[in-house]
């Protein structure tokens, strides 16, 4: 049996191993090589040593893009957590049409990011957009959602929240519903107010879900590309420039594969560090 298992096991795993070697190991290695060269895909690569890294450290646009990501996360994550938690709590109650509501919130989740970006580009349009028409109708001045450098990135953060909250509602809902009813009853017996109930019972028990939301949103924030690409092109004044968009610009507009790969490596490293920190801060210690 053992011999047979060895052969068959390796055979079954072979496609995956080939795939990994070709599409993961080789690219990672090649990316690390590209960090040290300058190459436009057409002529031969030129060795430049630490030049790309040195330039990265002093590259104002790169750091601006990172800052933009931070701004994005600061708006996006709390918004998502609050909205998803609120909705999940409302859904957790015994109400009619729960299935309908849950399905309704989930619709933006399955829609392509490209479509969502095109839709919200119009929704945010200063003159004819859905939002400003509503705002003007109640007498307030129109907001330059995508043309003001201080508002643009938060606006995108809001849009991404709109798209993803439906999914996070599910995570929170399963967390809340898993809280045994006895815990709430016990709390009530001890005279806990609804507020106490929330903080002392609900929140701790949805902590794993909250961690998931934070991590997934962080990854989404670092992955921003199609949203600024379609809606703002990175502007105004580079306020919506995402790191991936910046990387794309260097690779395909400037034909600087080496520096683009350097940005990619740096971004991956930063992201891993950030997620690790989030793990330490938010996730429960796995006993």
């Amino acid at each position, binding site marked *: 049996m053992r011999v047979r298992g060895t052969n068959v096991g390796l055979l079954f795993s072979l496609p995956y191993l080939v795939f990994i070697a070709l599409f993961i190991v080789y690219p990672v290695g090649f990316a690390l090589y590209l960090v040290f060269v300058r190459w436009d895909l057409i002529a031969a690569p030129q060795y430049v040593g630490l*030049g*790309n890294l040195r330039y990265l450290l002093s590259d104002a646009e790169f750091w601006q893009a990172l800052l933009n990501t931070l701004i994005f996360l600061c708006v996006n994550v709390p918004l998502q957590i609050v909205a998803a938690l609120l909705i999940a709590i409302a859904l957790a109650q015994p109400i009619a049409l729960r299935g309908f509501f849950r399905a309704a919130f989930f619709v933006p989740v399955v829609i392509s990011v490209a479509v969502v970006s095109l839709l919200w580009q119009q929704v945010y349009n200063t003159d004819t957009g859905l939002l400003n028409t509503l705002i003007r109708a109640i007498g307030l001045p129109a907001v330059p959602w995508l043309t003001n450098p201080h508002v643009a990135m938060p606006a995108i953060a809001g849009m991404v929240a709109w798209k993803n909250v439906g999914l996070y509602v599910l995570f929170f809902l399963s967390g809340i519903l898993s809280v045994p009813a006895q815990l709430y009853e016990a709390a009530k017996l001890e005279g806990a107010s609804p507020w106490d109930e929330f903080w002392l019972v609900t929140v701790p028990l949805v902590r794993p879900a909250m961690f998931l939301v934070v991590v997934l949103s962080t990854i989404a924030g670092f992955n921003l590309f199609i949203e600024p690409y379609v809606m703002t092109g990175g*502007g*105004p004044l580079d306020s919506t420039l995402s790191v991936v968009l910046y990387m794309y*610009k260097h690779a395909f507009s400037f034909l600087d594969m080496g520096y683009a790969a350097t940005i990619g490596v740096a971004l991956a490293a930063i992201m891993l560090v950030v997620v690790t920190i989030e793990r330490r801060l938010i996730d429960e210690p796995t006993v």
Partner: protein
Amino acid sequence: MCTLRTIVKQRSRVAVLTSLLLAVVLVPAFAQPHITLTYWSAPNAEELSFARTMAQSWNAAHPETTVEVQPIPASGTSEEVLLAAVVAKTTPDICANILPSIMNRFVHAGAVLPLDGFADFDRVTHERIDAKTLAYARSDDGRVYQVPWKANPVMLAYNVDEFAARGVQPPRTYAQFMDVAHRLTYASTSGGRIDHWAMNPGTSVIWFWRMFDFYPLYAAASDGRTLLDRNHALADPRAANDAMQFLAMGFRRGYFPLAAPQPDLFLEGRVGMRFIGPWGISYLERAAVHRFRFGFVPIPTPAAKPSEFTFSDQKNIAIFSTTRHPNEAWAFVKYVTTRAADRTLLKMTSQIPLRRDLVNDPAFADYFAHHPLVAAFARQGAHVVPLDDTPHIVQILDYLSRQYEASAMYGIIPPERGIANTADYLTRIDRL
């Protein structure tokens, strides 16, 4: 009688006959190999039409060489498409839509043929092109890989009817321009929002837009210098400052709207002037919702000058080194740049052939007499300057665009600061 001998004899006869037939048919085909050349033209209707006309007459006169015209595949900019084709080694024999600024990459990669290697190169180019234009076409290694073909000089188009209604003349200097601009910016309904402006420079930050707003102004203000000098520093910082200040002033005073690049406000009659090339003539005639008369004057300059320069927006022709028939390709390139061909180009596309002394050439005099608007561009065609041919040009214009956004469009930093930043960036860009 069906003996074996008879059958063999019959079969041999058939065999001999068949071989003779085959020989008659095949030998000529092998003796004269048929050559097909692929020729990429810009995808717009007029240029395609010109290319096909040329190909047709060539094919009729040269049965052994067929030229096949294809539009450059449309996805993204032509520059991107060409670069992708070089990488994938799917380049055509000839391409007639090359922006000179990207030639350096092709040269560096050995993707294009040095044309000055052909025996009659000097004679042919000297007959058609003046020394300065040829100098621009020379690459860093001293050889010439492209034939300067046609220009789309950028001029200032103005709405003749609107100008008459507002009582203004087309401006020549910055001061005159600002004056005119003031009269052209107004609200059509009393008490309403301003909905008519003087001009609509691009508000997109994508690099190539600067070729049509900042660069023509710079070319005019600097008397025809390119953006960079031999050391890759700004060739004329003062002209750059002048150009940026001009744009900044227009935005600050509200003469230029901050609206998105589309729709075309000039076409709609809501903007009095715009920068445009000769392709604008047929564009404006074809597309205007409310027809209006339009005219063209040179790009304004800080102070009056004897001759005004502008951006050439030229396209050159190159032969890719993947070609298997360089001599035939060169023959067709020569065919497409004869006087007769240049006349056809003018007639079909209104674009200006880069032929020396075009305006005084008797072969074209008749055409210019009947087409005064095109003649204006032809005159301008004698004072044009292309964009620099350097590998970093996209990056430089991208950086410049962001300075333009910050200083001219939004007024966050003074225009001089924007140009100073650009000059500083130029020193850092050759970092490796």
